[in-house]
């Protein structure tokens, strides 16, 4: 699905895709989406359609280990549900269409663009946001390294980068620089902090990221 940022390098069955490669193959991507949608329709035809909405419906999310109960329209994205209804504003909305990474969250261990994921679709899954990475007040290795080497300026892209780098290191504890680049290519920083994000990610990998 378009919401998946599945470009993490440790999945042998997938070719890692940089943002720019992805752009080159965007036409193919939309085709793939159409195919998936058709598959889903078939599955639905067998199970019988389930209609929700268009008004508010109950949605229960598990965010950073805590249950969050909301009543929202089914069209509300995961990002907006958390930012506008649960006051979890750490992850940012920047492009709102899956091209900048500022909204990156981890859902069941995989990074997703929360702006392009419906909240209703991730019920029952473990959702982790930038707020959920520090354990009992102490920064995780990625957060600490970002602070140490000044891998942030305005900081608006930072939550997305922190989540993406954390996910990368949880799955690939000793990444090569190429793997770091690929793993973070889905994120954009306008202030130009990339040099130090690379430094910070290398430093965090050396320390090791412990899952909280």
């Amino acid at each position, binding site marked *: 699905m378009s919401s998946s940022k599945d470009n993490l390098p440790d999945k042998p069955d997938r070719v890692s895709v940089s943002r720019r490669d992805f752009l080159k193959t965007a036409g193919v991507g939309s085709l793939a989406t159409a195919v998936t949608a058709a598959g889903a329709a078939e599955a639905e035809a067998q199970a019988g359609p389930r209609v929700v909405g268009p008004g508010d419906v109950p949605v229960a999310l598990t965010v950073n280990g805590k249950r969050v109960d909301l009543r929202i329209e089914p069209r509300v994205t995961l990002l907006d549900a958390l930012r506008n209804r649960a006051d979890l504003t750490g992850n940012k909305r920047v492009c709102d269409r899956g091209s900048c990474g500022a909204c990156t969250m981890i859902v069941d261990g995989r990074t997703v663009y929360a702006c392009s994921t419906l909240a209703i679709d991730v019920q029952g899954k473990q959702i982790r946001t930038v707020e959920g990475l520090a354990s009992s007040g102490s920064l995780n290795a990625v*957060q600490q390294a970002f602070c140490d080497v000044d891998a942030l300026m305005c900081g608006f892209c930072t939550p997305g980068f922190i989540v993406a780098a954390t996910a990368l290191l949880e799955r690939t504890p000793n990444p090569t620089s190429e793997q770091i680049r690929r793993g973070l290519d889905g994120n954009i920083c306008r202030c130009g902090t990339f040099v130090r994000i690379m430094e910070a990610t290398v430093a965090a990998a050396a320390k090791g990221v412990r899952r909280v």
Partner: protein
Amino acid sequence: MSEQNTGRGRGAAPQPPPPIPTPDPKYAWPAKPALLGTAVKRIDGPDKVTGRARYTYDINRPGMIYGRMVRSPYPHAKIVSIDLAAAEKAPGVRAVLAWKEPGAEVVYQGDPVAAVAADTEERARDAAQMVRVRYEPLPHVSTEAQALAADAPKWHSTQENTRAGVRQETGDLEAGFKEAAHVVEATYSTHVITHVCLETHGAVCEWDGDQLTAWVTTQGVHQCAQQFAQSLGIPQSNVRVITQYMGGGFGSKFAPDVQGLICARLAKLANAPVKLMLDRKEEHLDTGNRPSAFAQIRAGVTNDGKLTAFDGRSWGTGGAGANANFPLPYLYQFPNRRRVHTDVYINAGQQRAMRAPGHPQGCFLTEILMDELADRVKIDPVEFRIKNAPPKAPNQMWVEYFQQGARQFGWEKRHPTGDPAPGPIKAGMGVSAHLWGGGGRGTQAHVDISSDGAVVVRCGTQDLGTGTRTLVTIVAAETLGLPTSAVKAEIGDTNYPFSPGSGGSTTAASVSPAIRITSIKALDALFARVAPVLGTAPENVVAEGGRIHVKGDPTKGLAWKDACKHLGTEPISVDGQWGEGLSSSGTSGVQFAEVTVDIETGVVRIKRILAMQDCGLIVDKLTAESQVYGGIIAAINFALFEDRLLDRVTGQMVNPNMEWYLLAGMSDIPTIDIVLNNMPERGVIGIGEPPTVSTASAIANAVRNATGATIRSLPLHPHKVLAALEQQKAGGTQ
């Protein structure tokens, strides 16, 4: 801040160094600083990496609703009617308003027309679509060429498509060309880019009776409050503007703008706090851009490489009714020169100041020409620039940077134009130089010291991501002899003393002296109270290492906290302001670039950048370096990726998003080396803008050196590289 919205880069030619007034010795920067110039971690880093930092976009107020604007889809049209009835009745709608009247003209795609507010963002979007606006489309102009055509339609029914801009003439042009052994004649250009602040423009407005509190993502809280008051017709004392954190501005965020005013009005109408943040498309269309620049230039040079004459006809567009000036020729000394500029208007959103307004354009137009001239007389580009650069001065260090940089970069390995290596990948090096003004004044500050030793510094400046909060903390801590953890910096609020908007790289030079002076005043007041306890006179007391003690005898003193206990019930509370001698203006820099170009695909990869940059007294090494990295990466985007594309037929932006409006990602970043020339004797000078000026020119010159083909326009997209190579094969680029 006149340069902010005009895009007029100052200093077409470098100015003689401004004298640095001697500060009152009492306030002078310390000779042996404990913190200044060291690598101090950003104070608000932990808040930003955990998501705790609240940006305007993150402000959620009790009962808050959401605003959404309705904008013209046409580049040029007359509004026939605006029907708000259906939107008014839409679910969840709490307020609607028309911003323009029927009969009014819209002059660009995205021109604001109306607005709605509803209880959820989704419903506000729905309701905005139910506002019925009838337009009578009018012919438009979307490119400079269209606007300049003989029978061009007008961008505005009552206004011309062009305006005569600056006209400058110095020396004797004819004699200059007579003296020249070679003349290069060509047209150079740069394109329009948008700021793409990751936090889009917008505000949260809340009324309490006739008092307005506005959280605005802005580079000038006080300036914003003034404009809210003026535009809404309320006293400025009734307006409070808050910007605790902001997600980038780059010159585009000095005012509440239409969306801020609409937000305030919707909040009044709905009697509820309103959040109105623009979406990415609106951000591209209506929050500013860097104007285009074109110049048809004739320039002469002697056989031994002395510039003799420059004759340039320039033009550019800043959109619908906005000018597009830039310095030309840039930096180098053409003794005889003429420049005639024309501003061109098209149906597109207006330009705003963008990181070093005017300079990247003027620099590109001049620096590509410089390499062409150097090749004509067969002189190495570095040597050629040294021959024609202004003489050395504290704010004009080019000659030294060229020499030192060339050594460090390995310039001697540069081959003449055209990489002779076999195969499709060609490598090349390029160089470019820049200048900037900077300098600051006007900031006021307040320091409180309580009897428990707590220190609070308040200043109505704002932190754009440049590190201003950290800088305030460092200067106060340095002055008070405390660790940074003992000082609380409060900024980004009009409740704090006035500080100017953050533009033109003036913030560090405005704020640092104000904090220094106010902190020393606070110390004076503290010493007056503590000296008697130490059995000495106040002038014999110093604050260092977290202690207040007798000068020269650290044992005769008190720990900071114990000293402050003597304040009892009457804390220290002092005001102060910027003073001369602790900051100055004028910076110079030189950058080198190495690239590879695939001549089969036209793809340019940057290998290395070296930046030589002066910046006066460095306050925080970490954040100063980050500014330089950031400036260079912004310029890589300008050179290789971003481009605001308007469809010539529909007049609409083709790429108002972040997938087709390209920006560099991790994989596009080269090795970047920075040499910061610390010049503490010059005081603090801003560094936000200068490093972004010359990178693109150095890259373009490196591409030329690699391929032998001259690309005289930005961006260096593959198709243009290929076209230049074709042209060169046909013998056309010399």
